[in-house]
């Protein structure tokens, strides 16, 4: 009876306080969107927390700009992040990625009928992303090279307010992301010198970030794995696919 007593004692309840009292209790499960099981270890809450921002890049963390060579795998990793919510029935959208491989998205598990694409938003991109953040659960966006700090801040705030997840792949790093996923190494299996075909790729992903994500985590994945999905590699019995 502590809360009402205090409220009665003061004679009236301030409006924001009343709003907090009336807010329904939400469970952790409702606040996060599910991801594919192999990716759960990368994220502090085992899923994409609603309202958070995730930056996916090919650069190794803390690598100096001169030696930083963007490693491949960022786009696939971003698509794999979308696959979990998409399979669970959420809408996802991609903005500013004209060369996105839609077939690869479908192979990793993104439902194409709930995956609208805005390939070339042009100068209107902040308005486009803001509109989509309003309506869909996950927005994958490739930022232009130069982003005004105000725009970036507004988008992050809007995503937090609307409970959507903003995933950035490539482009500017002006956005203050909650979780940063970077590809530390990537190597292909299955292709020889003049024979075979690309079958599976082993990538090491390093997750860092702020708050709950501050502790650095590293996960090794088959992305894509030999059967098209995403699989975690158990370090104890890690083995090459083609021995």
């Amino acid at each position, binding site marked *: 009876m502590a809360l009402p007593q205090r409220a009665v004692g003061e004679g009236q309840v301030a409006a924001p306080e009343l709003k907090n009292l009336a807010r329904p209790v939400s469970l952790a499960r409702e606040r996060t969107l599910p991801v594919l099981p192999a990716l759960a270890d990368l994220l502090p809450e085992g899923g994409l927390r609603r309202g958070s921002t995730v930056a996916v890049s090919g650069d190794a963390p803390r690598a100096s700009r001169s030696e930083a060579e963007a490693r491949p795998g960022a786009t696939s990793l971003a698509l794999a992040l979308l696959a979990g919510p998409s399979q669970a029935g959420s809408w996802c959208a991609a903005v500013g990625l004209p060369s996105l491989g839609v077939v690869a998205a479908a192979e990793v598990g993104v439902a*194409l009928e709930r995956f609208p694409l805005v390939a070339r938003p042009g100068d209107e991109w902040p308005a486009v992303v803001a509109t989509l953040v309003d309506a869909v659960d996950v927005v994958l966006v490739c930022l232009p090279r130069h982003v005004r700090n105000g725009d970036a801040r507004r988008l992050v705030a809007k995503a937090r307010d609307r409970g959507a997840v903003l995933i950035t792949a490539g482009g500017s790093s002006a956005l203050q992301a909650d979780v940063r996923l970077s590809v530390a190494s990537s190597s292909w299996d299955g292709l*020889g010198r003049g024979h075979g075909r690309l079958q599976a790729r082993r990538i090491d992903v390093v997750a860092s970030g702020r708050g709950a994500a501050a502790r650095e985590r590293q996960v090794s994945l088959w992305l894509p794995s030999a059967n098209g999905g995403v699989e975690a590699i158990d370090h104890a019995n890690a083995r090459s696919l083609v021995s």
Partner: protein
Amino acid sequence: MRTLVLWCPDWPVTAAGFSPDEPVAIMFANRVVACSAAARRGGVQRGLRRRQAEARCPGLQLVAHDPTGDARAFEPVVAAVEAFCPRLEIVRPGVCAVGTRGPSRYFGGDEALTARVTEAVAHVGGQAGIADGSFAAELAARAGRVIPPGETPTFLATFSVGVLERPELADLLTRLGIRTLGAFAALPAASVLARFGADGLVAHRLASGEDEHPLSARIPPPELDVTAELDPPAERVETAVFAARGLAHQLCDELSARGLALSCLRVEAETEHGETLVRRWRLEGATPLALAERVRWQLDGWLSNPHGPTAGLTLLRLVPEEVLPDEGRQLGFWGGDRALDDHAARALLHVQGLLGPDAVTTAVPIGGRGPAEQVQLVPWGDARAPTTCILGVDSRTYAGYPAQERSGGPWPGRVPAPSPAAVHVNPIRAEVVDANNQPVTVSGRGAASGEPAKISIDGGRWTGISAWAGPWPVDERWWDPQAHRRRARWQVVTADGTAHLLAVEGGRWSVEATYD
């Protein structure tokens, strides 16, 4: 209400430009949806599979169903009848209805009116019939008869319950021993409502020869009209349809806020030069998409007509002619969240408003060999059905397989999965040399001149190639000089671990896609 219905037999066949004497079947999703008289004589029926139809009628021509084309071809027919019968309603392409009270008196009776209408549409073999209510009138039109006032129930009594176009109800009634409309109409209405629900009651009204529109149908108050003024004037159908889509959303929102459902829509369009086209469309279960589709049909037909408008469209207005109380629809218990879908659809419409209708796309898987050929991007809001021709065959002569079947079909030489995550819109120029710095070429027989050792992408620095496979030669559409492409694909992994899909065509190398 006394109604005249004009019915054009096998309209999809006529609209596709075939005469009834040619054996033709219109296919959709591997099923016959309509066939010509000659094909029917050969034993073809609606609902048959392609193979069954071909087995029954050798020499049968198969044509894919094209609803927009049907509507476009119907426009001149409507215009011919509308010249002397105002307030015409299009029920669906091939069938339209008009109230006879005025025209009948003016032309001297039902028979005279029927003769006049039949004469106006003789070139497409249309038939007209008059009865009480448009359901009975359509049956009368098929029989080419004029049913005198008050005799409609007698006329209907002998028809089978199958003509109600409610397969589940008809099946149940047949099993209950009620085989004709007469027997069904003889049941007390209250018992029918108790046993078969609201839809059953509507069917009962139809079978009894009463007006199918419940008495609650009414003309809505005028403030529900929605209007868009197009400035600059819309020259293309797409621009106008896009505006119509916004209007349709607005109209549906307003109606649902008032608890109403649309049953008849009037679409008015006006051009810069003051030409107007007004059409009435009968609808059931109107969604914004269905409304926008009607507008597209109407404008397509008008603009492709040689006597069509001479300037761009400046005004578009959607007027609800008739509304009913909305009985509501039950949202799926386990299904997707419809509210969420609507929300997303509205946001995408907003983005289309910012960037133009083609800027928001959705991908549809189709058949193909290369990563770029396996999907088609369709503007958001259009039907998610591929429209390109398959295998170089014109899609109109190709039987209507659903997209999934086509994309799953055998595509020998297809680039194997996993697919690349970055497919370059414009392939990036590249150069590939062997260990002796000689450019690698692929001969006409698909043999490589050497092993690729180094690659330079877009004039960049040379990088070693650590693994490769190829060449995989592809010779596509050799029967079509314009679309013919001959190339060889390679998969390579460079020293920095990046995998690319390369193509060499006419001696030039390019990066088609990157396994990012």
